[in-house]
């Protein structure tokens, strides 16, 4: 670690946490935890941008998130494991590639911060969000539309992807019993590398890991979600260690996130037992699209800070407002839908009990 980066992280500094900020961080944690437990994606896709919207620098938001993810993944994976949703063999095979991916990502993040500065680092993280989430949502929308049309002659993007990757299935092939698939070692390592890279870059490994396991390896959504949480224990540990070694982890932030996220992740995992897989996907797409919009609205602000764009402060204010609205709106609506499904399930249960 160079002295320059040390100075930069010192300049970013110790964040002033007021009681209001503490409550907001716990609420952000609950939202991320609920969506994470429900979709198995980690929750960082909403928590990292939300922390950045609170004024926490991007690299510290990613560091806080990945540190928090380490502990939360242990709880989430345990819960999914109890429900038979974790393929540990698959998780261990992906493990080596995942470590390499996280290491590359953390080095790149530090490089951008060191060479170009905080605004560029925030812009890099936001652009990664926009690219990754756009691709994932396009694939998922195509999948759902194809299922709706039911035209046997026309293949959806995910089906085409699955077919293409099956052709590329180089030996050795490995049987994963819990996941119920036989897959090439190279494909599994590729998915692990991509998951690790994104976990280290934006704290969002599950957003590529879960769809990749579904569409490339052919695993069902529940086992993909559970296995990704199991894998997040390792990527979280490594990411937390690397960021903490360089002084980017403000311990209070992950602790405040935990207050909400552990309740959320437990509730979310319960929610998966009472809804269809297509309902999980629908909520996921809705939130991803709004998060993409939210991050897109922040780009002009970072370009202004870097001196590449000139904009009146009032327009910057509007962009920031639109970003916050779409981000917090997506979290609120997504959580609202999941909680409503859980409450409705409880009502059905009590109704049935009353009839008997």
């Amino acid at each position, binding site marked *: 670690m160079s002295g320059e980066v040390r100075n930069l992280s010192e300049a970013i500094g110790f964040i002033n946490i007021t009681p209001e900020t503490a409550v907001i961080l716990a609420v952000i944690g609950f939202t991320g935890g609920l969506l994470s437990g429900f979709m198995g994606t980690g929750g960082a896709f909403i928590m990292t941008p939300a922390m950045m919207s609170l004024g926490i620098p991007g690299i510290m938001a990613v560091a806080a998130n990945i540190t928090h993810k380490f502990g939360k993944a*242990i709880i989430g994976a345990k819960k999914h494991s109890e429900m038979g949703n974790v393929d540990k063999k698959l998780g261990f095979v992906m493990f080596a590639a995942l470590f390499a991916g996280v290491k590359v990502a953390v080095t790149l993040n530090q490089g951008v911060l060191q060479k170009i500065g905080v605004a560029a680092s925030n812009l890099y993280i936001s652009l990664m969000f926009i690219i990754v989430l756009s691709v994932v949502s396009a694939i998922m929308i195509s999948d759902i539309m194809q299922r709706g049309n039911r035209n046997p002659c026309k293949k959806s993007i995910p089906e085409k992807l699955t077919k293409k990757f099956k052709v590329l299935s180089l030996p050795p092939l490995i049987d994963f019993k819990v996941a119920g698939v036989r897959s090439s070692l190279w494909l599994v390592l590729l998915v692990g590398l991509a998951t690790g890279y994104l976990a280290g870059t934006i704290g969002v490994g599950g957003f590529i890991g879960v769809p990749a396991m579904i569409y490339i390896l052919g695993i069902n959504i529940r086992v993909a979600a559970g296995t990704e949480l199991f894998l997040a224990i390792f990527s979280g540990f490594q990411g937390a260690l690397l960021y903490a*070694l360089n002084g980017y982890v403000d311990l209070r932030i992950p602790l405040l996130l935990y207050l909400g996220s552990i309740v959320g992740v437990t509730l979310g995992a319960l929610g998966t037992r009472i809804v269809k897989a297509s309902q999980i996907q629908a909520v996921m797409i809705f939130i991803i699209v709004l998060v993409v919009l939210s991050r897109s609205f922040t780009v002009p602000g970072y370009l202004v800070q870097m001196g590449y764009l000139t904009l009146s402060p009032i327009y910057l204010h509007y962009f920031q407002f639109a970003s916050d609205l779409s981000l917090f709106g997506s979290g609120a609506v997504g959580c609202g839908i999941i909680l409503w499904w859980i409450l409705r399930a409880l009502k059905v249960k009590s109704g049935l009990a009353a009839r008997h």
Partner: protein
Amino acid sequence: MKCNDRTWGVEQLLALLIYISGTALLYYLIFSNPLLLRAIFNGRGYAGALYVLIVILLASTLYGNAVSILMKHTLEKAIDKRVIRRG
């Protein structure tokens, strides 16, 4: 404690009390010592990183187990998978 045992007993209540007390003590120690926290934050190196990881592990284990016990005996019990699962 048995994993699928969803009835409240002395053992469960005691475990819940221990986890909640442990969580409260940990959070109090961290948030009431800003100077120590600042020293760790600025200190970096393996000692600081190790401290961060240990606190995170402790917090997630203590608080996670407390929430898990509470949920197991309340919401999870209420949601009967066989009756309402439609997927």
